[in-house]
């Protein structure tokens, strides 16, 4: 496949990823993950990343845990600030596949800015982060095998309830 076609598919994939979360289509978001054993989703603080410290802010280490993260929101288990969120994904890069790696898996990098808007229509910047993902191209369908969201704004405003 040509580079530009893959680039366009990945870009569309990341836009859909953001839309699933913005529109609270959480089942659709979960369906973007590959249900393999070591499917991971992590939100990492840049501070910890730079220090080589392993603790995530949010860590899901199986497809089930990815499901649970949003199920707790949908089922009303958590009391959290229910703002409207707008995720802007930018600077999407497709990394060349590592030699000897899985032929159909490849890395993706992208920037993320999230704005929050409260019930009275007041907006503010909520999050600055970058995506570090590993995607698989399985029979023409892109799926996330590993997703790390590295957060520059790790002094988290109030809470992080909805995944990034």
């Amino acid at each position: 496949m040509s580079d530009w076609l893959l680039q366009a598919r990945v870009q569309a994939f990341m836009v859909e990823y953001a839309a699933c979360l913005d529109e609270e289509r959480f089942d659709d978001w979960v369906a973007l993950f590959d249900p393999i054993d070591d499917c991971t989703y992590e939100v990492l603080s840049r501070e910890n990343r730079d220090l080589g410290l392993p603790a995530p802010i949010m860590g899901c280490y199986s497809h089930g845990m990815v499901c649970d993260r949003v199920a707790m929101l949908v089922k009303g288990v958590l009391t959290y600030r229910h703002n409207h969120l707008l995720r802007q994904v930018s600077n999407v890069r497709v990394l060349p596949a590592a030699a000897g790696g899985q032929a159909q898996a490849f890395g993706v990098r992208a920037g993320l800015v999230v704005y929050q808007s409260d019930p009275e229509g007041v907006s503010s910047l909520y999050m600055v982060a970058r995506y570090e993902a590993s995607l698989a191209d399985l029979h023409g369908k892109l799926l996330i095998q590993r997703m790390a969201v590295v957060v520059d704004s790790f002094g988290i405003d109030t809470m992080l309830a909805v995944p990034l």
Partner: protein
Amino acid sequence: MRKLRPETADDAWPRADFSRVPYSVFTDYDIYRRENQRIFRGPVWNYLCMEIELPAAGDFVTTWVGETHVIAARNAAGAVHAFENSCAHRGARLTSAVRGNAPHLTCPYHLWTYTLEGDLQGVTFQRGVGGKGGMPATFQKNEHGLNQMRVAILGGLVFGTFSDATAPLEDFLGPHSIAQIERLLVQRKPKVLGYLRQRIPGNWKLYNENVRDPYHGSLLHQFQVSFGLQQPTMRGGIKLDSDLKNTWNHSIVTEQDAASQKIVAEAYAGTGKFNPDLKMADPALTRVPLDLGDNYKTTILSMFPTLVVAQVDNTYAIRHLRPKGPDLVELHITYLGFESDTPQQTRDKLLTVNFIGPAGYISLEDGEALRLVQEGIRHRRPGDHEVLEMGGVGPIVDTDYLSQEISIRGFWSFYHRVMGLPGPADAEAAA
């Protein structure tokens, strides 16, 4: 500096048992400024960092004491010193790094240098240039060190105080605190697994109330109730130190039986929050075993003014409050594992961190609760106050039950005294 407004009747504390707390303590900027003088620069020990964060000579961290930026550093002789991060010359911040290693500290502005004890070491062009200028002969470097704190260390926790009147650290913490520090931080050697930071739009004392309030634990935190981490029927209680400022609250592992489920169901009736059929697609998080064999499910040690050493299920963390004004506080969490942990125990802790911190299934709700209180009290009538009667009024005493707010009253009795606030003449009687 603008003069603080005089205290008025609206600041008065109407009850000697501190079961009423005027909302102005959470919103009034003058009270907030007084706290900086009377508490953070007053006779208290402020948590600075963990000793393991300063393993080598020259290591330093920056932290906050109230709104004062402080450097804690280990010098060549191995001693830990602490001082304000503000040059003795013109006040510039010496470093903006959160942590680092340096043989000495240099102010970026005019390159004055300081030792890691906070003493002035070098003044550029002190003797002038080409025989002209320079500092006057009367200038004595030993009179111009950084503002230094007294430092004391207990159980690997580094504390500092600006006051000469502060009681010895062991006395200030009290026996329950020392026993819990020993249990959580000394019997196994801790290591830092990461830092979590949560900026909560609420007053720093609302967090002090939150951690002294086991009443909310099984009500706000439905996740805890649903997965057996905290049940209103659990055994547990609180222990206070002699001047009531520090609280240890704890709950003990109990089997969830039909009777306890019935009590939970009744407590939640009509709230729409009880969900007995809640299941997890992957329950691994809730199945991590407790690796201390002493059956405590949750133990929260809250020490005046800004330190919490917490075990929530199998998580171990230092929580430090960094006020940023009357209506904002950074909750800074040092998340811990232990040197003796197996690789599996480390993996378990990277999983259970999902209970705590800004994204924690439990702790994220505390950020929201504080925000809601701060929003709710922003414009209450002067003289309005909190009502703290759960668990009983009157004497402030230890309990063997969890649904109580007595330990919150303990916090306020000490706060009231150290702040020198107006109140009922017999306020001391409660203590």
